[in-house]
């Protein structure tokens, strides 16, 4: 390891200052070149090579490795194994870093490129989380209503959702999917809660960025977008749901979620961003 430097808090300009401790700084102590790491490596490789070919190589390798270790340890004893590297001649040293020819003009409000469009106030992220959970409840209520109206019962939608991870849902008859299953309920609720929470958080972050029509965006545009994505990927995500979902009710529940979350987020009192604090 190199020795500690002489001047620890020197200006960062590549300029060598005059020594302040009475010692010359025209040389720098560095670890010297050595072959012992190579000797040790060759020894270890020969041990391995001997296992594969002839064991006598391994014995030779062990001897080489031991010699390498001894040589290595000898070099790191105090006062050994270091060289004093001379500093390069002045003309080959780095030149001091020059100040740039063009000054930076600090951005100010009103200047092109100034990020005034970034919100100085936002809805708290917690609003997104809370709204997501409330929206999830709204969606679940609508799904339960669908279960009742369709005559399949309130457990049918949650069993379909749990089909994302429950393999037997693939083969269960419809009658079975209409019954209460504790595992399916737990899994379905978990998937629903996590999904609602995450989308709610995204609402909490994204909605303040929308200049106008936030409820319209949150209640209509965004649910329409992700419903399309889900429609395209449902076969992979949850084949059971893809086969048996009623898309009209499904999309309606997405709208219900979006509208509820959008309204709750937008109605939450805004707080200052760190940008606002700095200002």
């Amino acid at each position, binding site marked *: 390891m190199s020795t500690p*430097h002489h*001047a620890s808090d020197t200006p960062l300009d590549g300029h060598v200052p005059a020594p302040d401790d009475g010692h010359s700084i025209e040389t*720098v102590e560095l670890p010297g070149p050595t*072959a012992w790491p190579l000797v040790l490596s060759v020894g270890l*490789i020969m041990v391995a090579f001997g296992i*594969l070919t002839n064991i006598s190589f391994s014995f030779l390798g062990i001897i080489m490795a031991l010699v390498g270790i001894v040589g290595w340890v000898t070099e790191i004893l105090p006062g050994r194994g270091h060289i004093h590297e001379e500093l390069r001649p002045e003309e080959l040293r780095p030149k001091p870093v020059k100040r740039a020819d*063009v000054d930076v003009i600090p951005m100010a409000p009103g200047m092109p490129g100034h990020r005034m469009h970034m919100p100085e106030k936002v809805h708290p992220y917690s609003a997104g989380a809370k709204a997501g959970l409330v929206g999830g409840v709204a969606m679940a209520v609508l799904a339960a209503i669908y279960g009742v109206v369709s005559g399949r019962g309130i457990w049918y939608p949650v069993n379909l959702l749990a089909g994302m991870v429950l393999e037997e849902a693939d083969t269960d008859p419809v009658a079975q999917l209409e019954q209460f299953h504790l595992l399916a309920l737990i899994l379905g609720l978990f998937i629903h809660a996590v999904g609602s929470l995450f989308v709610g958080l995204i609402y909490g972050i994204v909605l303040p960025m929308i200049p106008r029509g936030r409820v319209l965006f949150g209640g209509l545009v965004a649910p329409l977008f992700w419903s399309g994505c889900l429609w395209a990927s449902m076969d992979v995500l949850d084949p059971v749901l893809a086969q048996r979902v009623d898309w009209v009710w499904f999309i309606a529940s997405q709208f219900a979620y979006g509208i509820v979350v959008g309204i709750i987020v937008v109605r939450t009192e805004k707080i200052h961003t760190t940008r606002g604090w700095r200002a």
Partner: protein
Amino acid sequence: MATTVAVPEMTDKSPRRSSLLEWVTTVDHKRIGIMYLLAALFFLVCAGTEAALMRIQLWKARFDFLEPDTFNQLFTMHGTTMVFFVGMPILVGFGNFLVPLMIGARDMAFPRMNAFGLWMFILGGLLTYYSFLQGGAPDVGWFAYAPLTSATFSRGMSTDYWILGLMTSGLGTLSGGINFIATILTMRAPGMTFGRMPLFIWMMLVDAVLIVIAFPPLTAAQTMLLLDRQLGAHFFDPQQGGSAVLWQHLFWFFGHPEVYILILPAFGMISEIIPVFARKVIFGYESVAAATVLIAFIACGVWAHHMFALGLSRTIDIFFSGSTFLIAIPTGIKMFNWIATLYGGKIRFQTPMIFCLGFLAMFLIGGLSGVMLAAVPFDWQASDTYFVVAHFHYVLFGGTLFGIFGGFYYWFPKMSGRLMNETLGKWNFWLLMIGFNLTFFPMHISGLMGMPRRIYTYDPELGVDIWNQLSTIGVLVQAAAFIVFAVNLIGSLRSGERSGDDPWDAWTLEWLTTSPPPAYNFEVIPAVRSRRPLWDLKHPEDPDWEHE
């Protein structure tokens, strides 16, 4: 914004030429780093040749250009070489060269151990390749699944060469990981707090931690396998009470973090290059660093997604599917940060930058197909098909290798004192971009059409000939790209334009010293006050430390 750069006048006086002995006995981190790079480039030629031979074999259905056994050896050695003897050493090489310079240190914490790591890697690689001269190279895949590796199915010594070659080179990698951690934790310049470290240093630190976590299980598994093969133990022999699945768990507990070991330094490189060429500070420094730590944490809990097709329990599938989806979040955060850095920037489309832009596009495709494979039902369909081959090549070639090329073009002037040729650099980029996509994008399609990987030929009725032919043509285009790179590298070394100390008007400490730097790096250890110490010097009217 600065429009001119302080470039010292160059003279023809240069330090005396170094002898071979000086290079062999050196403990200088910069020379060791360069030797890592050169050795990795040698192995890259080997692995590239193996890949080209495989692609010729797959040119048409039922082609008999190669014997099945030879094909098995080639895909095993290609994978093994690219992961262990190309990807990691290149990244460790860059890390060796750059880490002390970027943190304002004179060398690595353990310079001799650094040399030891280099030689273990080189000799381990040569030992593995020596198997070609001993009757045949390993043919069990880079993953070496049990029980294919048992003495019953893998006769001869080829698998033992694989085990011992990787164990010995792994020892070098492990010593390198420990060295990086010690160096970064203890040798930073005065004032360089964790919050002021360059992002490349953050990535190397997390990378080194992953190396220390991931390699011991692999070494343990290889030791067990060696005992099975040489001394009749039964760790992985189901017939004797062992478990073949145990090998997969141990291997992939190493294998998936390994993917992040291979990609994180490339993340670090582009996190340094993009801001310099967009002339903007990185967007969300803290979130990039935090996302890196999060990636490393999650990366240790996703290994069984390589084993979905094995028939593990539903609970395990759900857990590992969920954790795999989860890792997309910190990765997405990084993508967002890089793109946000570009947004509104005064972008200079020089070669290092266009490789970074290529990285962003290619890695995005690889990341998205990774998310697809995280879904268990999809994985069951696509597992062991060319879709998976396409996915990981988009991540590790489109991601890591594009990042590495960007790094080569960016830091070559610091290593050599000369700039690489811009025109050839752009040819290099476009040939590689076209060749890479021509090779690997059709594999998505042939994979979804049912073409299995690791099989030396395919059924003509599968209808995938055209996709395979496109892939093979793509390899030829890639070969042209690599030749252009080699010409550029050698030509620039001999007669490239002098670069000066800071050719890119950059901001981190390595650009403070000469190109190439002296053995001691800095005459005086610099003190830093912000994440962009050179910016502070160039712009005293608006230094970063006033804003951080």
